[in-house]
């Protein structure tokens, strides 16, 4: 009994520790000049064209990154999982590059490598989807592999081909729907990473392309009220992403059970 209470106290302390900054943030963002709470900082933010511009830029970048990642990661991971375990190990190993090469180092590398010749991309936003895809790669690959491990992809693929489907047709008609929940989950992770990325965006574009995190930094420096309102909105976006991912994860579990039965 005594033991149980210690655990409860620890959990409550943990909750306090992690929630205090966020309660403080929300409280700060709704405190006006007077004593009554107000949503004016949110209103100001919504009508600010700089904010909506950065939001649109971020959403566009994130969407490009998701499409790019699904396009270049899904087919090779699927193929290697089914037919080439050795290649899969190589893919898994290189997908961990972002853990050894952090964003700052990547930015430094890009600034030097993409600064001349044909690939003179520093100062433009064109590098960003590739950089974000690289940062999200370990997560996307693991989510997709998890999905593959829960299905019998190989025998389904062979069955389709023995019934006369071509490899490409079987991949499009059977494998892609099978992998859909993995692609959605991984895509959501990539989306969240892209929406929140600051380091590479700031260091390679030199601030020429305004995204949500970049504008958050500027807004907070100029006007802490507006900046904190924006931080609240960004957090809400992130929580929505995680809730959506959880929703799809539970959907996945149900469907896997159905397949096994």
């Amino acid at each position, binding site marked *: 009994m005594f033991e149980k209470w210690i655990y409860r106290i620890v*959990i409550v302390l943990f909750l306090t520790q992690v929630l205090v900054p966020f309660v403080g943030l929300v409280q700060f*963002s709704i405190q006006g000049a007077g004593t009554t709470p107000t949503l004016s900082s949110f209103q100001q933010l919504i009508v600010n064209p700089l904010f909506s511009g950065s939001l649109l830029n971020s959403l566009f970048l994130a969407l490009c990154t998701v499409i790019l990642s699904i396009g270049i990661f899904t087919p090779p991971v699927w193929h290697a999982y089914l037919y080439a375990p050795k*290649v899969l190990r190589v893919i898994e190993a290189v997908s961990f590059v972002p853990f050894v090469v*952090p964003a700052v*180092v990547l930015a430094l590398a890009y600034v*030097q490598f993409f600064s001349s010749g044909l690939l003179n991309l520093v100062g433009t936003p064109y590098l960003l989807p590739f950089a974000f895809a690289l940062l999200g790669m370990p997560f996307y690959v693991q989510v997709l592999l998890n999905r593959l491990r829960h299905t019998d992809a190989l025998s389904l693929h062979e069955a389709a081909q023995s019934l006369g489907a071509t490899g490409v047709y079987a991949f499009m008609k059977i494998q892609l729907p099978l992998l859909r929940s993995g692609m959605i989950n991984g895509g959501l992770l990539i989306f969240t990473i892209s929406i929140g990325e600051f380091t590479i965006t700031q260091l390679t574009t030199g601030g020429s392309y305004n995204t949500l995190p970049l504008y958050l930094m500027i807004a907070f420096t100029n006007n802490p009220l507006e900046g*904190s309102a924006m931080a609240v909105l960004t957090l809400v976006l992130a929580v929505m992403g995680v809730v959506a991912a959880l929703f799809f994860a539970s959907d996945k579990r149900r469907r896997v059970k159905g397949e096994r039965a």
Partner: protein
Amino acid sequence: MIYGPLFLFISLFALIPVANVIANSMWARGLTFNFYGQSFSSQYLNAFITTLKVAFWSGLIGLIGGAVVALSLWRSKSTWVTTVISAMSGVLANFAGLPLAVAFMVTFGVSGLVTNALQKFFHFNLSQTGFNLSSSVGLILVYCAFQIPLAVLVLLPAYSSLSEDLEAAALSLGCNVLEYFRRVLIPVLAPSFLGTFSLLFANAFSAYVTAYAIAGGSVNLIPIQIGYLINGNVSLNVGLGNALAVEEMVVLSLSLSLFVLSLRMRKKRRQRVKGGAINV
């Protein structure tokens, strides 16, 4: 053929630019180690030591905090609390960066929640004590807000993989709960703790955004110095930036190897006790 785009992508956006950094760190019209020499001169050596310190302490506090919280969750055996807290930890561990920094700055700021609460209930003036978020101690405090949740996420599966028989055996041999923790649970989970620490360490060592937003120029850290060199706030010295980047990658590779080693240790222990009651 099917692998072509992926390997082109990896080469163009990771391997070749990084190889270029490594090459340029020791090449300027001939082989040179000048940049490494500069990178160990006073200012940058200090940055290295401060970064190591912040990463070590936030990793250690994160590990201990996370281990205690995950233990409490596991022992309280309440599935819904565990689900809610792991979902929350998922958000917090991945959502460091700017919003977290902003949250801390306003909460501990002049009219922030914590500052006001301390003043109101304890008549304690935070700013008079000399406490400052933009210091290594302040940074460690902020880092803990994502390090502890990350440790909880990583350690929960480790605890739940422990067999109940292990505890029953220890208790029937006369251990009390604390002795069971100290003499069975901690040694059995030691590889997991080691792996978690190396993850947290690497996480803090490479953190840029949080440090940049909170401390800016007032805490001397390696990632911040690299960022300054790119932005040209200091007279641009690419070679020095490259040397710092290589050193950072070396430290991160070392802690990643430690993580892989801890996975091996865990596997070995599992094999050693295979078939027995201990399911580590």
